[in-house]
């Protein structure tokens, strides 16, 4: 049931790269769209097969591979992975659809995109630590090429920086995995096995620390984020959608699955600091975004801020906050993809991303009215305006976290205020105002160019109005995750206070 998600894109990508006959750009694009479209359909099938009430992993697949290393092909799906896999399939299709038709070496591009997608799907489904690590590392190379070949200015610098940071992140993660297995004396690297291990709290803290640095680079959290703005800005819109929409989720997914799952005692002990860290990330991301003059950099920094909410929800590890955090991962993926797509269209048509040069794009006849309208919508969604998906997920996180970490939560609420500030700046400078009569002879945005944005915007609105369709998939999984973590004494007192703080979903 799960394997096609990995193998469809992977084999499709390899075929696309190595088939002996010639393909035009259009043909390779259609092939890539077909393959990723099939993967997307398969994902929808998974939703229909998913058992909402089951607590553990479903649709397990197991095949011995290298038993000597403890590395087995072991897949499984729970609510958390389901959301991530769905995001991956959707955004891959969107990213491929939104790619520029005039690019160079299209076959190689689409092949790499499909490889990334297949690998990421595998990482989200892997039930074996080494398998996860393997797939995690595999992403790096195609992404390096995707950035360094098809990127914009300073792409070499950005690609190298990305590669180095992520490789180092991998080292930290591997160290943590190995430590957990060897110190715990587990027979192999299967997730279920490692889950049984009980390590002393001090050891757990060290291992969790390593993991936090490793995944913290990937998410990224604040001191480890400096690769992100350069990379997102240098990457082409399609690649940026994959990077920000999907790859960043590998970090938070890893932290929840492995950090929270494997080292519950350490997690309980460190959670107040994690919450502070999250708040710092949120505020830092927002304040830095305010200072930017390039709209893509703004969106990149907004991403740092928004991943902070996910961390806050994780740190609080109430059922509600975890559901919120998982949903926030999805909603951030959708909104960021929408923003990057729109910014890509603006750059393509107008030829600049600078706030002091853009103006008046809302003009109905000579501007980019639909793009501007969607930009306003996505800015509002990102800033947490009710009726859109961003509000739902942020509110779930805040509601779930406030009883545990009131101060940190309030700081994050301030962060959403600041998010509104920079999005209003962005929208005001780009969409409002009047066009420059000398320069404003922009090309038309065709309907096909708007399709990805229209799909994403529809999802953002629909899930904002009917949040249950987003939230209920991960309810059982968050319950399982929360049950694993011992609740520190200080929190029991806090949590037992008013019942209103933890409404049932």
């Amino acid at each position, binding site marked *: 049931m799960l394997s096609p998600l990995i193998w469809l894109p992977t084999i499709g990508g390899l075929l696309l790269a190595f088939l002996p006959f010639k393909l035009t750009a259009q043909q390779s694009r259609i092939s890539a769209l077909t393959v990723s479209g099939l993967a997307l359909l398969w994902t929808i099938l998974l939703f229909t097969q998913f058992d909402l009430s089951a607590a553990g992993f479903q649709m397990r697949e197991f095949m011995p591979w290298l038993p000597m290393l403890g590395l087995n092909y072991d897949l499984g799906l729970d609510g958390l992975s389901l959301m991530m896999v769905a995001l991956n399939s959707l955004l891959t299709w969107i990213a491929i659809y939104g790619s520029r038709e005039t690019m160079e070496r299209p076959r190689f591009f689409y092949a790499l995109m499909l490889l990334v997608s297949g690998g990421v799907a595998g990482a989200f489904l892997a039930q074996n630590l080494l398998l996860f690590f393997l797939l995690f590392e595999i992403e790096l190379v195609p992404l390096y090429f995707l950035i360094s070949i098809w990127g914009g200015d300073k792409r070499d610098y950005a690609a190298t920086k990305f590669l180095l940071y992520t490789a180092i992140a991998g080292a930290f993660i591997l160290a943590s995995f190995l430590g957990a297995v060897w110190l715990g004396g587990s027979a192999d690297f299967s997730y279920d096995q490692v889950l049984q291990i009980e390590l002393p709290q001090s050891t757990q803290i060290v291992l969790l620390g390593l993991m936090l640095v490793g995944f913290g680079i990937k998410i990224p959290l604040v001191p480890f984020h400096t690769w992100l703005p350069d990379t997102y800005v240098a990457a082409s819109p399609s690649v940026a959608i994959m990077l920000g929409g999907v790859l960043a989720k590998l970090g938070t997914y890893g932290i929840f699955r492995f950090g929270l799952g494997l080292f519950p005692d350490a997690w309980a002990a460190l959670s107040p600091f994690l919450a502070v860290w999250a708040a710092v990330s949120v505020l830092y991301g927002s304040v830095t975004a305010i200072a930017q003059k390039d709209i893509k950099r703004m969106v990149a920094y907004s991403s740092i801020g928004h991943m902070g909410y996910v961390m806050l929800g994780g740190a609080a590890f109430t059922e509600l906050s975890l559901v919120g955090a998982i949903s926030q991962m999805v909603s951030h993926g959708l909104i960021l993809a929408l923003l990057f797509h729109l910014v890509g269209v603006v750059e393509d048509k107008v030829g600049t991303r600078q706030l002091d040069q853009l103006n008046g794009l809302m*003009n109905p006849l000579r501007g980019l009215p639909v793009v501007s309208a969607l930009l306003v919508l996505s800015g509002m969604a990102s800033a947490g305006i009710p009726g859109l998906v961003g509000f739902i997920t942020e509110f779930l996180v805040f509601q779930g976290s406030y009883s545990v970490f009131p101060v940190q939560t309030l700081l994050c609420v301030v962060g959403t205020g600041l998010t509104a500030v920079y999005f209003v700046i962005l929208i005001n400078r780009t969409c409002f105002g009047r066009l420059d009569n000398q320069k404003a002879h922009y090309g038309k945005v065709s309907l096909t160019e708007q399709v990805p944005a229209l799909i994403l915007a529809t999802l953002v609105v629909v899930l904002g109005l009917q949040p249950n369709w987003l939230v209920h998939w991960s309810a059982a999984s968050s319950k399982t995750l929360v049950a694993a973590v011992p609740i520190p004494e200080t929190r029991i007192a806090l949590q037992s206070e008013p019942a209103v703080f933890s409404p049932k979903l």
Partner: protein
Amino acid sequence: MTTATLTATLPPSTHEFSEVIHRLEAGGSMLPDTPDNLKQIIGIYKAYAVPMDFYWRDLLYIAEQVFLNPLPAFKYFISEEYLDRPNAYAGDTADLRIWRGEADAHPELRAFMEKGEVNRKLPKLLHHLWHDRVNMEFAEACMEAMLWHEDINPGFNAYLDSEEYKQNSDRAIRAYFKGNPAMLGLYKLFPEMFLEQVKKLSYYANLGLFWEVMAPVFFEMSDLYDEGKMTTVPEAMEFLVNGIFAVAGRPIYHHVYIDGECYEIIPKSQAFTWLYEAALPYVEAVFYRTAPFRGTKSYNAQAGQIPADQKDFHYGILYADVFPVGSAGIPPTLLMQDMLHFLPDYLVEEYQKHGRGEDDMLIQLGITFQRSMYNVTSAVIQALRTALLYPLDDPNPEHLKANRQFFEQQIDRFKRPEARLRDVQDQSYR
């Protein structure tokens, strides 16, 4: 011959628009003489003349028939009689035949009124409610600009304030509301309110009579161009100048018809004329001044964006920024939308080759309209020069100097950064 005399007698102008001034002195237009410009302006004259044919008929219908109706819900539903009303400058019955076509409403206008954009025969009311109609509001806005900028039409306004005008209005008001004690009571209580409305209606008549001339002029220019008899921009301007002089003396009046009886509110005997009481005030009010667009300027008194003095207003078509046409708060959109229905094919083809083709045609035709109005303004400037100063080939250098001073004064008004004179010199401004 003309240019030879000029270069021999006057040194080159040092004005920032010296090129334009030299062109005016040589008998040209502010608009450069290129085949593309000619095609654009003539095409747009045609597209402008058809809605204008409706504007003048409806303006007169409102001034003469709707009059003081307190709820004029159907003032844009003009009667058959006004559609058939012979234009005084077209057809066989013309006082002076400018256009060789028929004197009643233009066939394209009739077709549009019948079927509209939806291209289906529906009751008038449905076309109106679906906004499938001529935007009469634009014509009313032009009228209001003329009414409000009162300093530019002193003779006419003096009469509107005179005792005689009040008495004429009084008779018409009483006749109109005969048997309606409520309105008559109101009139007794607030006579000024009603008088002010009548003044406004006199301006409806004024503008209607102005456009009654312009519509056939534009139709004839379009026909001449189609026949290959109008080949340069200066010829187009010259035709306008001649047209202006030919009808300069046409009377401007305001007659009201109540129960089949005619009330002369402004009698023809007042001898108000087309050139001085309608054309020149119109050009000043609509081409130069009008009112600031709600979508471009802030009316906030503290912000001080709008001049305190009406003579400094510079929001007419010669200054307008056409790029935001189609957005909220940009009144010319109404006119552009009207002209869009009546574009000749050769202009549509032209627009499809530029910009976004069909998609931003409203803006492209707006810029063309701006070009054509620079040509009309050139005609007015040349006409004024002919009336007040000396011929262009005058051998006396002092006279030529006076002409130059006059031209420079006129062009000085386009030194403002908002003025589009510089833009229309360039063929890439579209």
